[in-house]
């Protein structure tokens, strides 16, 4: 193992030092991306974030907006939720216990860890409160702990829903509460075997009766076997009262964030697509999630583009696959989505914010920012607009990595940064 290991790390290190620059240019974004041919290289490209502290720096936001760190020293914040009284809940944790099956897994885990925080996941919910409305969140307190890698958060009718990596749970919540009154009640277990993609995203229907949980695949492209993909790469619809579930949409490789579109009540998702087909394949996407639809994984992508790595193939499933609505670009690692409101300002009034964690397997890094996808008549329309950038600096160092984005009804965007362990709040200048 040793010579192999050393050599691979060496060659990976050589790759790490190569090139830089703007990675978006070759990316096909928008509703109808032109996809390149599949590529296969002996050594996959890797360019890992080189972490650095923010220091005096901050993310860059559009003119007329300001950004503040409202909480720091968190324990891997992922998703946030704004409660009815304006308090912010932050889910903190790191999940996954996928076994390393090949020499490659051992090597890749060491390299990828370079670009992540060294902090231990909190397995808790932290509550932030700005009692006097001055924009400073003076209260930071643990709302609930001893959770198992909590990620998805939702609130409806006095119930706070939390998607742990292995179960969907519920807390009773009264306005103003700063601490859970007890341990949560389990609504249902969630698929948790291996948990290669462990994040369980969550949204609740407008009437509060249905919960939607996004469950990622157990592999990049079935390299852990087809058997472990049962109940994976799909969105479950769960009855909030009984815990009964059914697959709502399937073939979505990793639905990392879900949200309900105001007005239409339609479920939307951002999803991360497969790797190792080249720097510009396969696009991560933003899509409305259609009930009963199959989105391709693992057999095909973006409609009928067959992926020969998924064997045995399934032509019937390929034929049934539908295209997502909007390409965000390949490897951007979209992990957060929320719809905007008019209070965010004219330019950003109609559309969705998307948090992009940033690439690790692309020579020209992409992502590492929060973008705004403009909507028109309830559908994405036009090029995405950068909303918060500077997470990966011009000096090649990475100061933060955006995950969840949440629109605060007061007219602010809450951004969770799981590298700097910080919550950012972007507001319009008055």
């Amino acid at each position: 193992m040793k010579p192999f290991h050393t050599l691979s790390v060496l060659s990976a290190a050589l790759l790490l030092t190569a090139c830089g620059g703007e990675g978006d240019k070759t990316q096909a974004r928008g509703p109808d991306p032109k996809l390149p041919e599949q590529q296969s290289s002996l050594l996959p490209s890797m360019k890992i974030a080189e972490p650095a502290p923010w220091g005096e720096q901050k993310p860059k936001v559009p003119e007329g907006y300001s950004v503040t760190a409202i909480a720091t020293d968190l324990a891997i914040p992922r998703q946030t939720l704004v409660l009815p009284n304006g308090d912010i809940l932050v889910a903190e944790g790191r999940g996954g216990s996928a076994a390393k099956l090949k020499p490659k897994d051992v090597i890749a885990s060491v390299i990828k860890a370079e670009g992540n925080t060294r902090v231990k996941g909190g397995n808790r919910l932290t509550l932030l409160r700005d009692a006097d409305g001055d924009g400073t969140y003076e209260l930071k307190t643990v709302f609930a702990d001893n959770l198992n890698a909590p990620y998805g958060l939702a609130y409806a009718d006095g119930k706070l829903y939390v998607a742990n990596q292995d179960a969907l749970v519920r807390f009773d919540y009264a306005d103003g509460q700063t601490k859970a009154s007890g341990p949560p009640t389990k609504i249902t277990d969630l698929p948790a075997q291996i948990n290669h993609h462990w994040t369980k995203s969550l949204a609740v229907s407008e009437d509060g009766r249905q919960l939607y949980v996004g469950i990622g695949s157990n592999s990049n492209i079935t390299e852990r076997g087809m058997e472990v993909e049962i109940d994976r790469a799909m969105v479950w619809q769960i009855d909030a009262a009984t815990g009964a579930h059914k697959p709502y949409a399937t073939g979505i490789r990793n639905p990392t964030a879900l949200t309900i579109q105001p007005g239409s009540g339609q479920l939307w998702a951002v999803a991360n697509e497969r790797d190792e087909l080249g720097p510009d394949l396969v696009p991560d996407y933003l899509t409305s999630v259609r009930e009963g639809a199959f989105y391709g994984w693992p057999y095909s992508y973006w409609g009928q583009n067959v992926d020969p790595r998924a064997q045995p193939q399934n032509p019937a499933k390929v034929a049934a696959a539908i295209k997502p609505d909007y390409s965000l670009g390949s490897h951007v690692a979209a992990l957060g989505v929320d719809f905007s409101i008019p209070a965010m300002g004219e330019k950003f009034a109609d559309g969705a914010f998307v948090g992009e964690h940033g690439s690790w397997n692309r020579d020209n890094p992409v992502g590492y920012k929060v973008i705004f996808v403009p909507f028109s008549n309830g559908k994405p329309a036009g090029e995405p607009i950068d909303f918060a950038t500077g997470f990966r600096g011009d000096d090649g160092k990475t100061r933060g990595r955006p995950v969840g984005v949440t629109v605060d009804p007061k007219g602010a965007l809450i951004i969770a940064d799981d590298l700097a362990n910080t919550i950012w709040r972007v507001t319009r200048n008055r």
Partner: protein
Amino acid sequence: MTTLPAYPTVRPGPLHSILLAGAVPLFLGALLSDIAYGQTYQIQWANFASWLIAGALVFSGFALLFALVNLLRAERKAGRPAAYFLLLLATWVLGLVNAFQHAKDAYAMMPGGLILSVIVTVLAIAATWIGLTNLRSGVAQ
């Protein structure tokens, strides 16, 4: 008619022999695992192949060091000492390429991985054959 060896006898050390011969069943096992994966699509066979190749690279890598020392110390370098070293070098380099090929996800390793496994196994057997013959007899030609 018998003739005495023209060169001093080079006896194979036990460690050298184990490393050299040990790579053969490892590469062969990887080849058989590849065939099983191609037949069944059961991913565990591909995992087995990956680790068998990694093990074979460790064995043949250290054997290669012995072969190099053997070559440098041989009074006559042409012929078997050189052939042995070059064959083993080719085995190791292609074996490394095969390791990377096997690192590709799911069926992306096929059919390249299987083809490389055939070539590497044949090379490993040839290198071991010549290497052990050379070292056992001590006859360079």
